[in-house]
C-alpha cells in the first residue's frame, strides 16, 4: 500500500525513511551502509524541489498524513546529505562515542 502522495510513487522504495523523529532518522543513518545512503540521496535529491512545491499547497498545520510522511522523508534526506556530500561515512568523523540527542522537536 502506498504511503506517499501518488505524485511521488517513485520514492515508495524509500518509504522506510519517512520517520517522524530526528533521533530515529539519525539512528537509521548510522545503521545504513554508504551505498544505501547514496542510493536514497540520488533518488530523492532531484525530487526535492517538486516535493516542496507539492507540499507548499498545504498549510503546515493542515498537512495530510501522506504529506507528513513525504516531509519526514525529506527531513531524512537532510540527515543523510551529510554523509553523502561531506563525510563519506555515516558517522561524523572523530565523533566517537559522542551523542547529541534531540530532547525536544516539533511534532511534524
Amino acid at each position, binding site marked *: 500500500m502506498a504511503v506517499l502522495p501518488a505524485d511521488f510513487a517513485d520514492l515508495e522504495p524509500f518509504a522506510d525513511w519517512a520517520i517522524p523523529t*530526528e533521533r530515529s532518522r*539519525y539512528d537509521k543513518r548510522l545503521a545504513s551502509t554508504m551505498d544505501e545512503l547514496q542510493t536514497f540521496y540520488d533518488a530523492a*535529491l532531484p525530487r*526535492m*524541489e517538486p516535493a*516542496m512545491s507539492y*507540499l*507548499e499547497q*498545504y*498549510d*503546515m498545520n493542515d*498537512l495530510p498524513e501522506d*504529506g507528513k510522511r*513525504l*516531509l519526514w522523508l*525529506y*527531513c531524512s*534526506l*537532510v*540527515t543523510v*546529505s*551529510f554523509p553523502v*556530500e*561531506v*563525510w563519506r561515512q555515516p558517522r*561524523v*568523523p*572523530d*565523533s*566517537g562515542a*559522542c*551523542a*547529541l*540527542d*534531540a*530532547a*525536544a*522537536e*516539533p511534532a*511534524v
Partner: protein
Amino acid sequence: MAHFTKPDEGSWTEHYGLGTGPISYEDSISPEHYELERDAIFRRTWLNVGRVEQLSKKGSYFTKELDAARTSVVVVRGTDDEVRAFYNICRHRGNKLVWNDFPGEETSGVCRQFTCKYHGWRYDLEGACAFVQQEDEFFNLDKGDYGLVPVRAEVWEGFIFVNLDPDAAPLHEYMGELGAGLAGYPFHELTQVHRYRSEVRSNWKLYIDAFTEFYHAPVLHAKQAVAEESRKLQNVGYEALAYRIDGPHGMVSSWGGMSPPKDLNMVKPIERVLRSGLFGPWDVPDIGLDELPPGLNPARHPAWGLDSYLFFPNFMVLIWKTNWVLTYHYWPTSYNTHIFEGTCYFVPPKNARERLAQEMAVVTFKEYGLQDSNTLEATQTMLESRVVTEFPLNDQEILLRLLHKAAHEYVDDYQGKKGGTPVRVSAAS
C-alpha cells in the same frame, strides 16, 4: 593583517585589560576547585532555566535539576500569572515534590496543586501549604508555617532565571549593558523549538571555550564547506567584527556572508535546493524587527552575520542576522562532566518548505556540535595529565580569558567572604 578594525591599543585583549600571558587550566581539572565553583558560582549567580513560553498557562510548571548548585527547583505560573520558583522539596519529610519515574529526571506539565507522592501534602501554585493528610495527628501544626521554600525567579526578555542567593542584585542589573543592549528583540516570535542534549566528558568551561571562539572554525569544520571555499577560509583564518565585555559577560560579533552565499557553488547541493545552511534559512522571515536593538552588530558592519553572547556563568545566546536564535546551556555534573543543551528557535514555519529549511539549519548545527564535543573529551583527558600547564591564547580567544578570570573572581570573592584562606588555583593572568 587585520581585516577588521581593532581598538587603539592594538588588540581587543589589551583594550579590555585581560592580560596577554599564557593561562592555566587547573581550574578545569581540579575536583577541589569545582567544589568551590558550585557554591561560589552556581549558588550565587542568575541561571537561565527556561522561557516563559514553556509556562503557557496558569498552573504550567517545569522542574530544573541544578546538580552543580546541589538542588532541584520547580518553576510555575501562578493563578495570578506570576512566574515563581521553589525548591523542589516537600516540607513534611523532605521528599522531592515534583518528579516522575526517576527522581533525577526533569519533568513538566500543568496542575492545580502540587501533591507530594509520599504522604499527600498539597501546595497551591503560589507555594502555600493547602492540605496536610491527617492534620489533627500533628502537634499544633500551622499550615501557614509550611509553605514551599521560595527561590528568586526573574524574567529577562522572556528568559526565566533563578538565583539561589537571596542577597543577589536584581536580574536586570546582573545582565548589565550587554543584556540591556538586546532589549526589545522579538524572542517571543521564535516559538518553533528544537532542543538537543548531550552528556559531555569535560569541564563545563571547556565547551564554553569552544563556543566563544571561532578561531577553530576554518580548521575543525573545514570539511563542512566545499573544498575550494574551505581552503580560502583556512588561509584567511578568523577575525571577529567586534568584541564587547561588561562585567563577567562578553560577546563576539561575526561576519556571515553565507546566507545566501554570493556564489551558489560555494555551498553543498542540498543547501542550493533548500536555500538554507549553517547560517539559517536564506529567505528571512519577518519577525517585526524594523531596527536592530542597539547591542546587536555593535560595529554596524554591513557583513554582519551573527552575535554570540556569553552571560556568565553558563548561558549563551546566538542571534543570527537571518532572524533565528540559538541558545547554549552548560550544566556541570562533576569537575570533568557536564550536560550540554543546544536549542534552536525559529518562527513557526508556514509550510513544509520553510519547515525543511529550518531542519537544514538544525541538523547542520548538530553536525558541527558533534565535531566540537569530541575534541572536549580529548582536551580534558590531556589537560588532566598536567604535562603542560600553561597555554597561550590569541586575541580571538579573548572571551576564554574573560570566562576563566570571571570564574576565578567569583571563587576568590566567595572564599574572601567566608574568611578562609583562599585556595588560589592560578588564575588567568
